[in-house]
C-alpha cells in the first residue's frame, strides 16, 4: 500500500478535518520514520501506517477508533534498534566497570574513588578477566556487548546452558593467563524483563534457577570453574520494570534458601520503567473498556495462565505495559497492541511467539 494512500484512508477512517490532518500527519510520519517503521514483525511490504490503518479499521465505532489512536499517540513506548544499541554500548561503563572498580578497591583496601589508580592496577585487569559474562537470551546482544567492552571471547557465553566442554575450555584459557585462577564474578545479561517470572518461578525454576543449579552442582564442570569463596553474581538488564526487579530480588532470596548459599547477588537495570506507565493506562477507564472489548480470549493458553489473568487484555501477568521492542512485542504489553494476525482482533505490532505455544515471555 502506498503511504499516501494509507494516509488518505487514515484520514477517512478517523474522520479528520484538514486542521486535524495538519496536526496528526507530520507527527505520524516523523515517528514512523524515526522508529515505528523498523518493527521487524510487520509482514513484508507493510510499514507502520499501513498497519495502523488496518488496525483502526477493525474497531466498530469512530469513538473506539479515536481511543485506539489515543493509545498509540499518548501511551506507546517504542524501543528502537538504535536505543537498544545505545544501552548495550553503555552497559559496561555504567554498570559493570563500577562493580569491578568497587571489587578491586575492596580487595586492595583502598578508596573506590581512586579510579585511575585502580584502573592501572593489575588486580583490576585480573578481576575483569576472572569475570564471566552470560547472555540470558538472544535479545541480550552479547556479541555486540563483547565487542564494545573489549572482552576476551573466552569469558563470554551467549546462552545460559553452557556445555561442559565449553566450560573446560574457558577455564583452561583463563588459567593460561592467570595460573590457578577461577571465575569469581558472573554477570548475567538480558535485554528486557517486565514481570521477572521467566527468571524466577515459585518452584525455584526459571532461568536463574537453572543457572544457580549449575553453579552449585558439584557434578557439573561449571562448578569447578567457579571460585565459590569470592563469588559475586550480578544480574543486569537493559530495560526492566520496577515490579520485575523486585520479583527477581525475591526470587534470588528463595534460591539462596534452597541452595543454602551466601553470595553477593545484585539485580540492576539501565532503563527502569516505573509503575506510572502502567497506572497511566489502568487509570483510564475509557481505554480499559476499549481494551476489554477488543480482546480475543484465544490467546490465553496454559502459559498465559501462569501469570495473573483476571483481566487478560492487560497482557501477561496483567503487566499493562505499552512497550514495543523493535524486534518483537513482549506479551506483557496490553494485548490489543500485539495480538497475532490469526486472532479475531489483530495487534498494531503483531507479536511472533518464540515457541509455537506462546512460551515467549520476558
Amino acid at each position, binding site marked *: 500500500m502506498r503511504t*499516501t494512500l494509507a*494516509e*488518505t484512508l487514515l*484520514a477517512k477512517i478517523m474522520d*479528520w*478535518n*484538514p*486542521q486535524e*490532518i*495538519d496536526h496528526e*500527519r*507530520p507527527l505520524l*510520519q516523523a515517528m514512523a520514520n524515526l522508529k515505528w517503521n523498523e518493527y521487524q514483525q510487520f509482514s513484508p511490504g507493510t510499514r507502520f501506517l499501513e498497519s495502523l490503518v488496518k488496525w483502526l479499521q477493525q474497531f466498530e465505532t469512530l469513538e473506539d477508533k479515536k481511543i485506539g489512536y489515543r493509545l498509540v499517540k499518548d501511551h506507546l513506548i517504542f524501543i528502537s534498534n538504535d536505543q537498544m544499541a545505545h544501552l548495550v554500548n553503555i552497559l559496561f561503563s555504567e554498570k559493570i566497570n563500577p562493580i569491578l572498580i568497587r571489587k578491586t578497591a575492596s580487595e586492595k583496601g583502598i578508596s573506590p574513588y581512586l579510579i585511575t589508580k585502580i584502573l592501572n592496577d593489575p588486580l583490576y585487569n585480573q578481576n575483569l578477566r576472572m569475570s564471566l559474562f552470560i547472555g540470558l537470551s538472544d535479545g541480550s546482544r552479547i556479541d555486540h556487548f563483547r565487542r564494545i567492552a573489549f572482552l576476551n571471547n573466552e569469558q563470554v557465553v551467549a546462552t545460559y546452558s553452557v556445555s561442559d566442554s565449553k566450560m573446560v575450555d574457558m577455564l583452561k584459557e583463563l588459567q593460561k593467563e592467570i595460573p590457578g585462577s577461577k571465575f569469581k564474578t558472573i554477570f548475567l545479561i538480558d535485554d528486557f524483563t517486565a514481570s521477572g517470572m521467566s527468571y524466577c518461578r515459585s518452584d525455584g525454576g526459571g532461568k536463574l534457577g537453572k543457572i544457580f543449579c549449575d553453579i552449585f552442582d558439584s557434578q557439573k564442570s561449571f562448578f569447578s570453574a567457579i571460585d565459590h569463596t569470592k563469588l559475586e553474581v550480578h544480574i543486569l538488564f537493559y530495560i526492566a520494570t520496577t515490579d520485575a526487579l523486585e520479583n527477581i530480588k525475591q526470587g534470588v532470596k528463595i534460591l539462596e534458601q534452597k541452595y543454602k548459599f551466601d553470595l553477593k547477588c545484585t539485580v540492576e537495570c539501565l532503563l527502569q520503567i516505573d509503575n506510572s506507565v502502567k497506572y497511566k493506562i489502568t487509570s483510564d477507564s475509557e481505554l480499559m473498556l476499549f481494551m476489554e472489548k477488543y480482546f480475543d480470549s484465544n490467546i490465553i493458553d496454559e502459559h498465559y495462565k501462569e501469570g495473573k489473568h483476571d483481566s487478560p487484555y492487560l497482557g501477561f501477568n496483567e503487566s499493562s505495559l505499552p512497550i514495543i521492542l523493535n524486534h518483537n512485542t513482549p506479551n506483557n504489553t496490553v494485548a490489543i497492541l500485539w495480538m497475532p494476525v490469526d486472532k479475531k482482533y489483530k495487534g498494531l505490532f503483531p507479536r511472533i511467539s518464540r515457541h509455537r505455544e506462546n512460551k515467549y515471555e520476558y
Partner: protein
Amino acid sequence: MNIRNPFLLRASERIESDTGFLRLYSPLALDYFIENTNVDEIWNRFLFIRSSPGAGKSSLLRLFEPDSLLTLLNRKSGDEFKEIFGKLKKINAVSDDRIKVLGVSLTFTRNYEILESFTGIQQVNRLRLFYSLLNSRIITATLRAVLSAARLRFPEDLLKIDFIYKDDNLFFKKINVPCDGQVLYDWAAGIEKSIYELLDSFLPGSSTSIEGHSELFSLEALRPEFIKINGKKLFDRVLFMLDDVHKLSSNQREILISHLLEKRNKATIWLSERLEVLNNLKTNRGRDYEELNIENYWKDREGKFEKLLSSIASKRAAESREGVEFILDSHQNELELALLFKNAKAALFKEIATLTSMTSKFDEWKQYLFKFDGTDQDICELAKQIEILIQRNLARNELPLEYSLSIVELQMRIDEKVVQAARLFLCHQFSLPYYFGMSTLSKLSTNNVEQFLSFSAPLYERMLSLNLSMKSISISAKEQDRTIRKIAHEKWKDLDKMIPESALITRFLTNFCTFCFNETFRGTAPYAPGVNGFNIDATRTIKLFNEEEWMNNDIFADLQTVINLCLAFNLLHIKEVMQGKKGEKKNIYYLNRWLCVKFDLPLNYGGWRTKKPDELLRWTKR
C-alpha cells in the same frame, strides 16, 4: 528530494546536495548585480552583503561556490537551471564551457573571537595571530576550491597545483615559493594547527613559536594568474566570500575591514554579515565599497519580491513528493462569508443613520449608498468609506452649513487610503478575513525569505491536508487569515526563547503596538490605513541641562538596547524617507510585518508618528 513539505527546509547550509539547493534557489537576487553595475564593476568592487538572518546571504554565497557552479554547468540546458545559468553567464561568472570565477568561501565562527580573549598575549601579537589564522584558512580554503573546481580529489591531488607566485615581499618565510599545492597546504595547515593548539591549551599561551603575519597577504598572493594546474590558468578571477563577519569581535571586524579597504588589492572580496553590527565606516559608498542590503533591495521592489516568493513557492512545491501546487486564494470567499456581509451591511446602515441623525448634510451620500447596486461586500466597503468620511467631516470645528454634500464630492474624497482604511476597519469590526492572498503573504514576509517560509509552510501543510482529504487545495480567505494570525501569535510567544532581554522588548513592542492600534482605529482614520512605524525626533527634547544625545546617553540605555536588539532580530526595520526641509532624510522604524498581524495592524508603509526619545523610553518601563 522525497519530502512531504519542502517549505519546512530552511537555511541553505542545511540543504545537503547542490542539485537540491539549486532547484530551490530562485535567482532573482542576481538581478541586483545585473541591474546595478556594469559587468566588470561587479568583480572590482569590495562588496558588503548585509541582512537579517534568513534573507538569503548564505544562499547567495553558496551559489558561487565551485560545486554549485559545476553542477549548473553540467545541467545548464535543463529547464530548471536555465534561468539561473543565464544570469550567472550574464555577470561573467560562468561561460558555456567553464567556470570563470573561483568562489572561495570562508565562514567565520566564534573561535576567532576567542583569540581576543587571550589577554596573556600582547595586543600586537594577537593581531598577528589573527592575520596568520586568516591567511592560513584562506589559503587552505582556496586550495580546496581549486581542486573542487578542477574536479580533482582533495588532498590527493594537491601536488597537481602549481603556485607560481614570486614572493618579492617575502611573505612566505618558511617555505620556498613558487611551490606545489601540497607544500603550500602543509605550511598553511601547520599554522592553523599551531594556533588551535594554543587555543586549546590550558597552559598560559606562548605565541612566539607560531608564525605571525602582519597583513592579509593571502588575498594578494592567490591571484588567478598564480594558480595553475598542468601549466594552465583555470579561472579569470578569484572571489573571496567571507561569511558571518559579525561573529568576529568588534575589534577584529574593524581591523579586518579597515585593512581590506586600505589595501584595496585586486582581489574580489565579498563580506557578508548580519545587521547586528551598526555600520560606522567613514567611507563613501560607491567609491571604497558597495553595499547590498538584501532587505533594502527588496523594499523598493515589492512586485519583484512577490515574484521571487512565488518562484520560491513553486520551486519548493515542485520538490514535494505529493505534487501539490502552492496556490493562495486572493479573494474573500463570498459564499462562506455571505451571512457575515449581510449582517455587517445592516449594522453599518444603522450606524450611519445614527451618526447622521442630527444633520441632513449627508443625505445624498446616504441615498447613494442605500441604492448602490453591488454585492453585500461592495456595499459594506462603500458604507465604511462613507462612515470614515462622515466622521472626518463631523470632527471639523466648522459652523454647520446645512447643505447636502454631493455625490461628486464623495467620490473625490474616496482615495486609495480611505479605501484601504475602510477595508481594515470593516474586517476588524466584523471579524472578516484581512490577511490572505499571495500579495499579503509577500508583504508579511518583510523582505525576508525565511520569514516567508515560516508562514507558507503551515499553509502548504494545509494544502497537502486538503489534497489528502480529496478536496480542493484552495484555502479560503478566512482559513488563511486564521492560520496567519496563529503563526504570528506563536512567533510572539517564541520571542521569550529567541531573543535576549525579551521582557524589555516585548514590553516596548506591546506599548508601541497598542499606541499604533489606537491611532489606526480612530474613527476619522487620520493616518489611513494605519500607523505601524515611528520616527525618533531627538531635536525636540527639552534640555534642562547640557545632556548628551539619546544614543550616547546612559539614561536611555534601555531604549538603546531595545532599538539595537529589535533591529538585529528583525523586529523593527528602518526605511529612509525624504520629508521636511528639502533633501532632509528621516529614518522610520517600521514594525516587522508579522508584528502588524499580531496586533491587528495594516501592512502598508507610510503610516508613522514622530516620537521623542523620552516617550519611547517610557514604553520600555511600563
